[in-house]
Structures are given as structure tokens and as C-alpha cells.
């Protein structure tokens, strides 16, 4: 816990805090006063995400008749703001003929899953299940 006062995140409704934590990687930890971890999480997730785009990965959205695409879409959208920015500027369409396509997907999905784990960690800190 931070030494001085109550972190801003503690006074926010839990769902709002979790939403912010999902939207910007590391923001939940910043709001809870965990700045070092916030920076590390932000850098790791952004680097993984950018590597995924650079490697011709696909930001997967649900495809009718393909149940696995729904799971992959959860991981993709798990990237929060990064997902919407990339989709907004036309990145992350995926180049299936590229040799790096599967690597790109792996990096993009990993980044999203890591961000979702960061959201769960934010929840544990905000609810007192984790005291550091």
C-alpha cells in the first residue's frame, strides 16, 4: 500500500476501476498506487501487441460457425484501447500467407490475456485479497 493517503482507485466504483484497468493496460495499478508494476505491465503488453501487429497477426473477431473464434475474440478485445486503435486504423487484419502469421497471432492473443490477468489482479488489490 502507498504510504500517503488512500489511492484514487480505492474511491472509484469497482466496475469503473476494472473497466479503466482493461481499457488502458496498467491504469488500474496506477490508480491503486502500484506504479512500478503498472509500468512493467504496460510495457510488456504494448510490446507484445506491437510485435503481434508487426508480425502480420490478426486481431480476431467472432466468425459465425467458428466457436474457437469467440474465445480468440475475447483475448483480442482483452487488449482494450490498443485493440480499438489498431482496428480503427485498419491494422491487425492478419496476413495468413505470411510466415509470421501464427507468431503474430500468438503475440496478440498473449497480450490480451495478460491484460485480462492484470484486470483480475486489479480486482484482487481493490478488494483487499492482495495487499501489495
Amino acid at each position, binding site marked *: 500500500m502507498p504510504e500517503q493517503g488512500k489511492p484514487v482507485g480505492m474511491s472509484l466504483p469497482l466496475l469503473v476501476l476494472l473497466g479503466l484497468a482493461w481499457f488502458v493496460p496498467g491504469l488500474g495499478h496506477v490508480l491503486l498506487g502500484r506504479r512500478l*508494476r503498472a509500468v512493467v*505491465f504496460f510495457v510488456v*503488453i504494448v510490446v507484445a501487441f506491437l510485435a503481434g501487429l508487426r508480425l502480420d497477426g490478426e486481431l480476431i473477431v467472432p466468425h459465425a460457425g467458428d466457436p474457437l473464434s469467440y474465445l480468440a475474440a475475447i483475448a483480442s478485445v482483452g487488449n482494450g484501447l490498443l485493440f480499438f486503435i489498431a482496428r480503427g486504423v485498419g491494422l491487425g487484419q492478419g496476413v495468413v500467407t505470411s510466415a509470421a502469421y501464427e507468431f503474430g497471432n500468438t503475440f496478440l492473443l498473449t497480450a490480451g490475456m495478460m491484460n485480462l490477468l492484470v484486470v483480475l489482479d486489479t480486482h484482487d488489490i481493490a478488494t483487499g485479497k492482495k495487499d501489495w
Partner: protein
Amino acid sequence: MLDHLSLMVLHALLIAVFFSFLWKRDRQERWRYFLKVFGALVVGAIVLGWVMYPFPRG
């Protein structure tokens, strides 16, 4: 572009850093955990590659 081994090492590096900060509190614990996860991912993938070597796809 990076080769497959470099990409695998980069991925292992990111994963190991992430989980060492997510799950470990102290600096020393983090270092130990980082080395353990990073080593397991990189060495494990290379070993698995060699184990599969005698079994061609065709």
C-alpha cells in the same frame, strides 16, 4: 524480420517478466521466478523441438 528462435525467446522474455511481476513481490523472488520461467520456456521449447525431430510431418 526476426527468425523463429528469436521470436520464441522474445515471447518467453515477455511472459517471464510479466508473471514475475504479477505473482512475486520481492526483487529476489522476482529474479528467481523470472529465470525459472524464462529458462523453462526456452529450454523446454528447444528440447521439445528435438524430441519431435524424428517424427517428420509427412
